[in-house]
């Protein structure tokens, strides 16, 4: 299979696979297909939202994209170059960064804020001397709205929202073009959430960043993303512009997902027609044959058990993987 990069896109992911071996008994391992044949691209300067329920593989996609895991299969192209070999990977790791979900466990408690923020600078030798490094740390801290006088403090002295700012400052330190934001606001209170979301939007405009925004809160993802991708059990189900996906979802899974989002408006909420899915998500070790959603889908037919539907363009820019749409 040959893949030709498209210059319009900054990041292109093609047939990405990530399998993990899991011990399932004495001398027996089963492959957990966390991500199975996922393809998508992200344009320069856009935010692609990635939603799905826990265990659907959205975090694994984010981590595999940055080569934090070595992909089992598939290709990742960044800025027209395929990511392979030590040299491209080193360069890629400077230009692509990550903001983690938990602002409590992703910061080293033994390091000062200045050292945490400066770590990527040290790793990539971006500052020639101590003075330049110090100035850069100050610049980064004020960029994310932290008091520069707090540079010598430790992470535990900060609140959740401030810690997430430290994590963002660290991600920005190597002057990246692409940032994977893995549930950056889920651990925060709503009033703080809005502060961090606004900041991420401002930084994107200011520094021309491209985001992959992973979250389970659909209203937050809709607000920040230009396009949204929906995942279920390691597969991508639907990909469409944010407004289109939330207004006119096509895949039965997306339809029920959208209808389950609680609306913070009592009158609208009373009118809401909930499609309550039956049962639970199957174990990722025993993914159903064919379409992974068929066991909970009310439109499933015999064809759904036989083959896994491929992504196809149902409307311009609106991709869906379902036999019955």
């Amino acid at each position, binding site marked *: 299979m040959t893949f030709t990069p498209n210059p319009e896109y900054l990041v292109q992911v093609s047939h990405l696979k990530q399998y993990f071996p899991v011990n399932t008994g004495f001398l027996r391992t089963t492959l957990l297909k966390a991500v199975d044949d996922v393809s998508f691209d992200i344009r320069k300067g856009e935010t692609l939202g990635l939603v799905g*329920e*826990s265990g659907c593989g959205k975090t694994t996609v984010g981590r595999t994209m940055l080569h934090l895991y070595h992909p089992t299969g598939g290709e990742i192209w960044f800025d027209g170059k395929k990511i392979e070999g030590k040299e491209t990977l080193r360069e890629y790791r400077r230009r692509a960064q990550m903001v983690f979900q938990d602002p409590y466990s992703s910061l080293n408690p033994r390091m000062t804020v200045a050292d945490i923020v400066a770590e990527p600078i040290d790793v990539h030798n971006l500052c020639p001397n101590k003075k330049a490094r110090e100035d850069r740390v100050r610049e980064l801290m004020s960029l994310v709205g932290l008091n520069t006088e707090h540079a010598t403090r430790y992470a535990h002295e900060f*609140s959740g*929202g*401030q810690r997430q700012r430290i994590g963002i400052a660290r991600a920005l330190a190597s002057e990246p073009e692409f940032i994977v934001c893995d549930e950056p606001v889920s651990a925060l*209170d*709503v*009033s*703080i*959430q*809005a*502060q961090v*979301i*606004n900041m991420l*939007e401002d930084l994107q405009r200011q520094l021309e960043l491209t985001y992959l925004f992973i979250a*389970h809160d*659909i*209203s*937050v993802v*809709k*607000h*920040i993303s230009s396009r949204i991708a929906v995942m279920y059990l390691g597969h991508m189900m639907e990909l469409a512009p944010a*407004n289109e996906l*939330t*207004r006119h979802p096509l895949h039965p899974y997306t339809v*029920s*997902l959208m*209808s*389950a*989002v*609680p*609306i*913070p*408006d*009592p*009158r*609208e*909420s009373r009118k*809401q027609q*909930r499609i*309550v*899915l039956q049962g*639970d*998500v199957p174990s990722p070790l025993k993914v159903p044959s064919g379409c992974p959603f068929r066991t909970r889908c009310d439109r499933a037919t015999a064809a759904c058990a036989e083959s896994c539907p491929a992504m196809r363009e149902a409307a311009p820019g609106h991709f869906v993987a379902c036999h019955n749409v």
Partner: protein
Amino acid sequence: MSMLEVKDLHTSFFTPSGEVKAINGLSFSLDKGKVLGIVGESGSGKSVTAYSILQILTSPGRIVSGSIKLHGDELVGKSEEEMRKIRGNKISIIFQDPMTSLNPTFTIGNQLREAILLHTDRNREQAEARAIEMLQLVGISEPEKRIHQYAYELSGGMRQRVMIAMALACEPDILIADEPTTALDVTIQAQILELMLQLQKELGMAIIMITHDMGVIASICDEVIVMYAGGVCERGTTDAIFYHPMHEYTRGLMRSIPDMSDDDKTRLVPITGTPIDLLHMPPGCPFAPRCDVAMKICLQEKPKEYWVGRDHLSACWMNVKEGTCFTERPEGEEAEA
């Protein structure tokens, strides 16, 4: 008379660095068959309210003053033995995390039977039958098989169903749900909320729903209490709170949640600053340091609760300044601004 009446409740944690006033003068009442929502940020005292009602506070926390009356019967000051008869029997609780609130070393059936045997005069066989009946009620398939399983064998949604079954086994008058769906996915959350509403109608109990999710409040609550720093900012019917928020904090909360129906991605208006440090409470309104329209009086004196509608109270000096509040409960339709 209301079923549950809480008056001027004060609960504090006496830590080595000082007294943390987790609840600072909380009053509310709950009627039979109603769903009351308590919403607020972390540290606002939502969970401590639940723990205070059930008196399951752990040291160094304790109720300092105030009254909690269930059917007119005072709960504050009751002995541990008397409280045990109320917990799980008259008032039940479901905790946030179904993973850690089930005992991993006992089967589901064992844990369900425990509550039934303790509070009713059923024998072991009858208790087992009741356990199976309860599991069926909360929509668990093959309950005869499930009662022999352990918590780790069930999914998150299933475990929360078991918790609900356990809480409802003795047909309590009040069910306290402390963030029951926060750890669950939205599709499972929808299942659990639907189930709770259906059981509430069938069994006629009242629910206290503790959550930080305005969407959950809007979908199931009749009345809402908005808490901040251990006190009530505003309380009233769900419609009043959502459509006519009178307290600056409630207004700020509403502005900071992204609107799903907005296609233009209007910039969010966050509440500035960080939540208050409960060790160092200011003399005035606890929200004043983060409030955009705070006045001099807000920093000096704590506002009292005033009526701002027929079923709507708010504790904000802005209402007093604008003359939109009353000291007596207003009558008539026009009172709802």
